[in-house]
C-alpha cells in the first residue's frame, strides 16, 4: 500500500471511532484529536441529515435522538456506495424491520417503503403525457397506454398509507386504517408526489397496464369495476403516456 493510500485508509477507519489516525497532527499537536472530531462529526451529521431528508416521516415517528442513533448503525452497515445521496437508503425499510428496538412497530418498514418510493417517483425520468384527444373515442380493445415511470404501486402488509398521511402537515386528524393497504404513488404535473390508498381492482388495473395489456384486457379481469375515476385521476396527473411503438 502506498503512503498516500495508507494515510487515507487510516483516516477513513478512524472516522468511525477509535484513536487518532497515525500521521495526523495539528498546531498545537495536543489539539489534533479535538480537530479530527470535526471530520467525524461532519460525516455522521451529513449522512444522518441525508437519511432524515429521505425518511422524514420515520424521523418524525421515532424522534430526533432515536433516529440519529439508528442512523449511526445504518450508516455503519449500509454506507452509501455513490455520492448521489438520493439513491441511498433502499435497504433502510428492511433494516427497520430487523432493528430490535422497533420490533413492536411493524409498520415502520412499510412507511419507509412509501418514502423510498416517493423519492424514486420524484426523480423518475420525464415522459410526455398523452393528449386527452387521443383518449376520447379511442378503441379500448386496441388502446395501449404506458404509465409514467413515476407510477408505483406498493402492496403493504400494514396500514402504512394512512400512517404516512397522518404524519403529513395538516394530516393529524386522518384516521388510521386497521389492515393492510395498497399505496399508489406518482409524480403529478406540478412535481408533487401524492400518496393514496387504492383498492385491489385499481392496483390490478395499473398492473395490467404496466404489463402492456390493452385497456380492455386490463379491465376484463375485474368484475363490477368502473375504471373511469382511476383513469381520469391518472390522466389529470399526467401519468398516462403514449406507448412507444414496439
Amino acid at each position, binding site marked *: 500500500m502506498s503512503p498516500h493510500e495508507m494515510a487515507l485508509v487510516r483516516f*477513513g477507519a478512524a472516522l468511525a471511532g477509535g484513536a487518532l489516525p497515525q500521521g495526523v497532527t495539528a498546531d498545537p499537536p495536543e489539539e489534533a484529536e479535538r480537530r479530527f472530531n470535526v471530520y467525524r462529526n461532519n460525516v455522521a451529521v451529513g449522512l444522518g441529515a441525508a437519511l432524515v431528508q429521505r425518511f422524514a416521516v420515520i424521523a418524525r415517528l421515532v424522534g430526533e435522538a432515536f433516529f440519529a442513533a439508528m442512523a449511526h448503525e445504518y450508516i455503519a452497515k449500509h454506507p452509501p456506495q455513490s455520492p448521489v445521496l438520493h439513491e441511498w437508503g433502499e435497504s433502510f425499510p428492511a433494516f427497520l424491520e430487523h432493528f430490535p428496538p422497533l420490533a413492536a412497530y411493524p409498520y415502520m418498514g412499510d412507511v419507509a417503503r412509501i418514502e423510498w418510493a416517493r423519492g424514486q417517483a420524484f426523480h423518475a425520468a420525464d415522459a410526455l403525457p398523452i393528449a386527452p384527444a387521443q383518449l376520447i373515442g379511442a378503441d379500448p380493445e386496441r388502446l395501449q397506454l404506458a404509465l409514467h415511470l413515476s407510477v408505483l404501486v406498493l402492496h403493504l402488509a400494514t396500514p402504512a398509507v394512512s400512517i404516512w398521511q397522518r404524519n403529513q402537515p395538516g394530516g393529524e386528524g386522518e384516521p388510521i386504517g386497521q389492515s393492510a393497504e395498497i399505496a399508489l404513488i406518482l409524480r403529478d404535473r406540478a412535481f408533487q408526489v401524492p400518496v393514496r390508498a387504492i383498492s385491489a381492482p385499481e392496483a390490478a388495473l395499473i398492473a395490467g397496464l404496466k404489463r402492456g395489456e390493452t385497456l380492455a384486457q386490463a379491465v376484463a379481469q375485474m368484475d363490477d369495476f368502473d375504471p373511469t375515476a382511476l383513469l381520469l385521476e391518472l390522466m389529470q396527473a399526467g401519468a398516462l403516456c403514449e406507448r412507444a411503438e414496439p
Partner: protein
Amino acid sequence: MTHLPTKLPATAGLGFKPEHFDQIRADRRRVGFFEIHAENYLGAGGLPHAQLAALRADYALSVHGVGLSIGAARPLDRDHLARVKALCDRYAPESFSEHLAWSSHDSGYLNDLLPLPYTEETLATVCAHIDQVQDALGRQILLENPATYVLFASSTIPEADFLRRIAARTGCGLLLDVNNLFVSCTNHRRDPWQMLADFPLDAVGEIHLGGHAVEDLPSGPLLIDAHGSAVADPVWALYAETIRRAGPLPTLVEWDNDVPAWPVLAAEAERATKILQREAVHEPA
C-alpha cells in the same frame, strides 16, 4: 487583462436553492450566475431538471462537483464521472469545478471533503485524476482549495505551492475559496494574508465566499467551514485584496445550511458586486 480559465461572467453569483426558484424568476438578473452541486442533479428527471433547465436559459451556470474524490489514492469512480459528464453535456455550464479533497473510501461515500497529505506522491495522483476528469469532460476544470482542520506529519509541500504545481502540470484552473483559505490559516495558526500573497492568483477562475462557525480551543479559535451564516468581515477584507490584485473574478456566495430568505442571500451577492466594482477599477498589475 489575463485570460481566465472560465467563461463565467466576472460578477457575483449565488448557490441555487430550489426554495428560492419563484423569487429568482420574479427578480431577474439580480445575480450574474448560479452554481449547483452536480450530485443533486444526477437523477433522471422531475423538478430538479425542470428548474435547472429554466434557470440555465436565463443565467450563466457553474456546476460544482462534491463527489469525484480527486484527492483519493484509489482510482476515480468511472460511473460517477460518466454521469457528471452527461450532466455537463446536457447543460453546457460555463464552468465545472471540484475539490482538492477526497470523499470516498473502500466502505463507501463519506459525504465530507476530507484532507490529504501534500507530497510528491499525492501531487502525482491528484494530477493524474485531474487529467482523467478533464479528458472525460472535454473541458478545463477549476480545483478548489480546501478548508482543513488537521495537518499531516508527512506533508512536505505548502498548499499554495501544491495548487500552483497542479495547475501548471494539468492546465486546470483554480477556484479560490477565500473563506476556506481564512479557515485553514486560522486553524493552522498561519497568516492568511501571507497565504493570499503566495496563492497563484493568475490561475484562479472563480472565487468562493461563505460563512464559517467558530469554536474555542485552548490555543485559540477553531473555524469550521459550515456555510450556514453570512460571510465574516475578515473574509470580505481578504476578498477585496484578492480582487485588487487579480482584477474582477466570478464570485460565488455559498450559503447551504440555515438558508436565509432570498433578499438576504441576494444582499450578500450585492455586497460582493460592490467590492468587484470598487476594487477592480484598476487593471491588475
